[in-house]
């Protein structure tokens, strides 16, 4: 984010974060966190490989690509 944008966003963020902080005073002892409305369990899929996918179709939105690869500025490790 640019500095100018950061300046703009900061006060709003601060007030939101402060307000959200009210959550911390809520009495929640002994209450388990709820990640999902239902008690689902993970469904498992049979291990079957699907037919090869069309690379052209899946890469058609690539901003930049070459020789079948997505390209990005050189990554140095």
């Amino acid at each position: 984010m640019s500095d100018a944008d950061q300046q703009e966003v900061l006060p709003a963020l601060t007030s939101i974060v402060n307000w959200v902080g009210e959550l911390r005073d809520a009495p929640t002892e002994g209450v388990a966190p709820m990640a999902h409305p239902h008690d689902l369990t993970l469904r498992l899929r049979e291990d079957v490989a699907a037919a090869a996918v069309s690379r052209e179709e899946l890469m058609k939105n690539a901003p930049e690509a070459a020789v079948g690869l997505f390209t990005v500025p050189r990554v140095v490790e």
Partner: protein
Amino acid sequence: MSWEIVLGLEAHVQLRTQSKIFSPASTAFGAAPNTQAHMIDMALPGVLPVMNREAVACAIRFGLAVDATIAGSSIFARKNYFYPDLPKGYQISQYEIPVVQGGAVTIVTDQGLKSIALTRAHLEEDAGKSIHEGVEGLPQGCSGIDLNRAGTPLLEIVSEPVMRSAKEAVAYAKALHSLVTWIGICDGNLQEGSFRIDANVSVRPVGQVAFGTRCEIKNLNSFRFLEKAIEVEALRQIALIEDGGTVTQETRLFDPDREETRAMRSKEDAQDYRYFPDPDLPPLVISQDWIDRVRSEMPELPNMLRERLVKHYGLSDYDASMVVASRDTAQYFSEVLASQATDAKLAANWVMGELASSLNREDLDISESKVSPSQLAGLIARITDGTVSNKIGRDVFAALWSGAFESADAAIEARGLKQIQDSGLIARFVDDVIAANPTMVEEFKAGKEKAMNALVGQVMKKSQGKANPQQVSDLIKERLSAGV
């Protein structure tokens, strides 16, 4: 100052499934770039993950093989960070509650057996690959991203930091490698990246209880590199501290050409991954029923077989562990013992010796051996009963390997390789050799052991190798001490 190395290893094991962990794309190695990346692996807008049952089954098998606790309910979490080979901007992994907890792997060291404790093992997805050079058509100044590997199921296995030498670490890595191939969850192909090790290395003065600062050396895909990398990294840290510096916690890569480690440029170390349970994946529940079913379908584990070999067949820990290093080898070995009563120690020597080198020479798997277990058992029996010596035995082996004969007996018969049993004949050879080599006799009487070998050698030559060397040497000693 005396230093101690403290080591913990993390292994990333690619699971042998047909399809990826969260998508139905194939996991086959070597396909053209991005032809095995499903829209799920590419993180297109709107896609969702669906878990592969077989990947979970692999995790259960591993948990059973290392006597670990298999979590009845475990959670998938998102590990958030940005990198071009990580399409979603997060990796689906497990954090607070992994599928496998605890467990241990046994290794054989110079001091005997040692149990290396595991912290945990969890399921996660592999990232894609970044290619930086060497691809024709890749523009200058660019890296290319291939997502074929993205989404391949991984089992990350974390050991406790209980290893104290590079050798121990390599023994552990090898034992783990053979275990995961033994139970069929990994193809064990190091070159293809099916089994990768990260080593956490730190040093501390001997006697200090607190751990030193550790560095993580990533992506070691050979045991040789693992050993070297640990050695050079430990030396680097020791030198740094002895020079008055401190070790910074960082991630490093091993450069095998320069034989040194260097820090990675990524800012991974300052990373806060902001782990939280993945809302697209409810908890993974594994029933006791499923665990029991998997257990009933598992083969005898290497540990158990090793113990049996030691207890009932009297093999040393070392020999036994060599036999159980691979399931195919253990299978072959068992068949040798089963086809007829066989000296287990001899069998181990032959399997790990002559058979192994023949296989290596022709780049064959033991399952492609040109000498069958029963053929080898037959040969060993003839050595045990004295029909041929060990040395002649090798000729017989070669004859069997070439396919010229169906059995050891056939080869021995056809080539007249039987050891000479006739002691009268041997005695005559001995007398002839003693008579013909007065210098050697003098040297032997003067106390030179080598002379004995030379004399025995002469007799062996005269007998075309068919005399029993032990018998010959006893006879020579007898003759010479009798002062003939």
